[in-house]
């Protein structure tokens, strides 16, 4: 029986889409492959449970794999990465056998390792789980990884972990591809810039290290990068119905991945409104109707899935309605507007007179005396964390490497500012303003949650990865920074790529040294 006309139309569309994908330069796929390779390296370098929050994420994935639904938020209490007793028996065995500590090395006893592998072949997977502070996270990433976990269910725990982590490497490759495409839309007349942006992402060591572990951040970064790409494409080519729906779909996927995505939504909404406003030059009734349809459909596609999830989660699954970001329930301490402003200010700027000192570490000495050590989040968390801090944010490069990295970042940023200042942006100022709004939205969201977390727990909250939904902007920053060098652009590009590669390989080497030699 020959395929009917409908089938031929479907295949023709698929072929055309494949043709579009094929039109991507080879460099795009190579950059994605390089990111995949880095993710694979980090997968095998990082010992089990040494990804940040990994035990809790594994528990969530396993629960979904076995029950087909997210875990209860009101389940057994757990702290940190989830108590040993709250995990399945094979994972409990892994955690008990592999000392779980953020700063220390794993055991180096081959005999213990062999004994664990032997036990894992016969361990039963119990059905009791607790995901601790990540139980309230949306289920999209965990559902995807649960499919992987089910496919590998016949394997022992450590083998399953390899495949569960492998999803992150593929997501990282997708993120790199999206960032490549974002810069391609941003600077269509500068094809030299697109691969540079791809390399900036593929060799970002902290993003790479996250790509090697089980964490929803990997999907969050991909979806966020996809949003930047689609907005840039819409700004370049106009907002059609299909592009509007695609933006809505990506927004829905982001909200269903992790709460940090909310920081991007104000900027995305503003972008859609700006694009619709621009198209008002076509004054016909049908054009007006079309604009309304695009706006409505984009909003519906973005909001409805998230709304359905909230409904299912609270009514059907009887989970708490409080949303959470990094396990902080928004119904906790709220504080004051003044406190919030001083907190946000203190994150990035030196504290002004009269402002509270929010960022202090309480350190006990050997006599039990407590000293307060102030720290500066912009430097201690975001810049050093971006250059390289690994494991549970426990170790990183020597101080001189961080200072060198700061110098490079300053040069790149200054160059980017110069490039933008020199450019005749014209109507593109609105697009730039959109991306700035997305950046500010993310920063403010992290600051709001961080302030409440600090009030509720007295502990610090900020981590570099919370801003990695803005990775696409990092690629653009690098490219704009290099462009400022004018006719020396090639040299600048070469130096930057060389430094990126050294940062990545250096990070992998210090991680190997930390976990398998623990230099004192």
């Amino acid at each position, binding site marked *: 029986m020959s395929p009917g006309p409908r089938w031929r139309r479907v295949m023709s569309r698929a072929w055309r889409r494949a043709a579009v994908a094929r039109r991507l330069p080879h460099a795009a796929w190579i950059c994605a492959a390089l990111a995949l390779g880095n993710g694979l390296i980090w997968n095998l370098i990082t010992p089990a449970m040494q990804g940040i929050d990994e035990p809790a994420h594994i528990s969530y994935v396993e629960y979904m794999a076995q029950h087909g639904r997210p875990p209860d938020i009101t389940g057994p209490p757990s702290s940190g990465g989830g108590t040993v007793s709250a995990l399945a028996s094979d994972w409990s065995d892994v955690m008990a*056998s592999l000392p779980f*500590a953020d700063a220390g090395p794993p055991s180096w006893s081959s005999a213990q390792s062999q004994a664990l592998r032997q036990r894992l072949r016969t361990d039963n997977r119990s059905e009791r789980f607790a995901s601790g502070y990540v139980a309230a996270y949306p289920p999209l990433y965990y559902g995807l990884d649960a499919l992987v976990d089910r496919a590998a269910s016949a394997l022992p725990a450590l083998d399953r972990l390899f495949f569960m982590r492998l999803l992150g490497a593929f997501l990282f490759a997708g993120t790199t591809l999206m960032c490549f495409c974002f810069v391609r839309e941003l600077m269509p007349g500068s094809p030299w810039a697109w691969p540079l942006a791809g390399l900036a992402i593929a060799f970002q060591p902290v993003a790479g290290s996250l790509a090697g572990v089980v964490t929803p951040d990997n999907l969050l970064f991909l979806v966020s990068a996809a949003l930047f790409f689609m907005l840039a494409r819409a700004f370049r080519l106009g907002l059609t119905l299909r592009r509007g729906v695609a933006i809505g779909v990506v927004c829905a996927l982001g909200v269903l991945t992790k709460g940090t995505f909310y920081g991007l939504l104000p900027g995305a909404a503003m972008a859609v409104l700006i694009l619709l406003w621009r198209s008002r030059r076509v004054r016909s009734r049908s054009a007006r109707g079309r604009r309304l349809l695009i706006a409505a459909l984009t909003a519906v596609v973005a909001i409805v899935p998230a709304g359905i999830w909230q409904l299912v989660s609270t009514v059907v699954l009887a989970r708490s309605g409080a949303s959470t970001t990094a396990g902080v329930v928004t119904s906790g301490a709220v504080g004051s507007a003044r406190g919030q402003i001083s907190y946000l200010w203190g994150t990035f700027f030196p504290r002004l007179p009269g402002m509270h000192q929010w960022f202090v570490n309480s350190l006990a000495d*050997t006599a039990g005396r407590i000293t307060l050590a102030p720290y500066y989040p912009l430097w201690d968390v975001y810049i050093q964390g971006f250059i390289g801090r690994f494991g549970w944010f426990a170790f990183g490069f020597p101080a001189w490497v961080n200072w060198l990295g700061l110098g490079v970042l300053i040069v790149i940023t200054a160059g980017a500012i110069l490039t933008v200042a020199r450019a005749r942006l014209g109507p593109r100022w609105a697009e730039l303003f959109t991306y700035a709004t997305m950046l500010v939205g993310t920063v403010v969201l992290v600051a709001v949650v961080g302030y409440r977390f600090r009030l509720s727990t007295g502990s610090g909250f900020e981590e570099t990865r919370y801003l990695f939904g803005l990775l696409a902007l990092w690629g653009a920053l690098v490219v704009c920074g290099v462009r400022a060098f004018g006719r020396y652009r090639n040299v*600048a*590009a070469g130096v930057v790529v060389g430094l990126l590669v050294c940062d990545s390989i250096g990070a992998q080497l210090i991680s190997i040294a930390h976990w398998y030699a623990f230099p004192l």
Partner: protein
Amino acid sequence: MSPRIGLAAGGLVVSVVVAALVLLLAQPSPHLAATNTRAYDERVAIDLAPGQRRCQGGEYVPAAAARLRLTIVGLGTAPAGPLAVALSDSEGHPLSQATTPVERAGPLDIPLAGGRADADGGSLCLQNLGRARIAFEGNLTSSVLEAAPSLNGPGERPTDEVRTDYYLGGRQSWFTLAPTIASRFADYKPSWVGAWTLWVLIALALALAGGAMMVLRLALRTP
């Protein structure tokens, strides 16, 4: 400007860093054979009062370990007396016994006899034979306040223990130590991972670096 200059610049940066790295890694230095620590720097001291004896289990003492290091972080006001150290394997057979003077805070090294097998689940007993309190660095409390609570390994009490660092004999360069690192790398990994995997990953990392240069070349050749 020619794309080759850009490639040369990138290659130069990588070459300089690699050369510096090779020089650094070739320097011999003391290296650990095993450690029970889960922290970079302990913030809580384990006190041993005069006359007090304290034992802890779960010690992994590799055959290659040539000395045990304890770190003394504080002494009482009276002159510190000797410290009796007894290390035994899981069956109670002595691995090392020594009575060592304690003169000042800092690292305290106790030599270990050779010619023994790896000892898993061993125990370490310390007795303060002097008249002053001795405070040892512990192994659990992390200086990273956001860290999850740390756990000891099997057979160990779920409390802070005296930190024990077991050192290899002599000094090794990182290149000499590489096979040992590769062997440790294979532990607690998927069943198909062996020491060979580390070499493959290093080769892959170098290949990725080459791939980056190739992409750079593609980029710089476009107008």
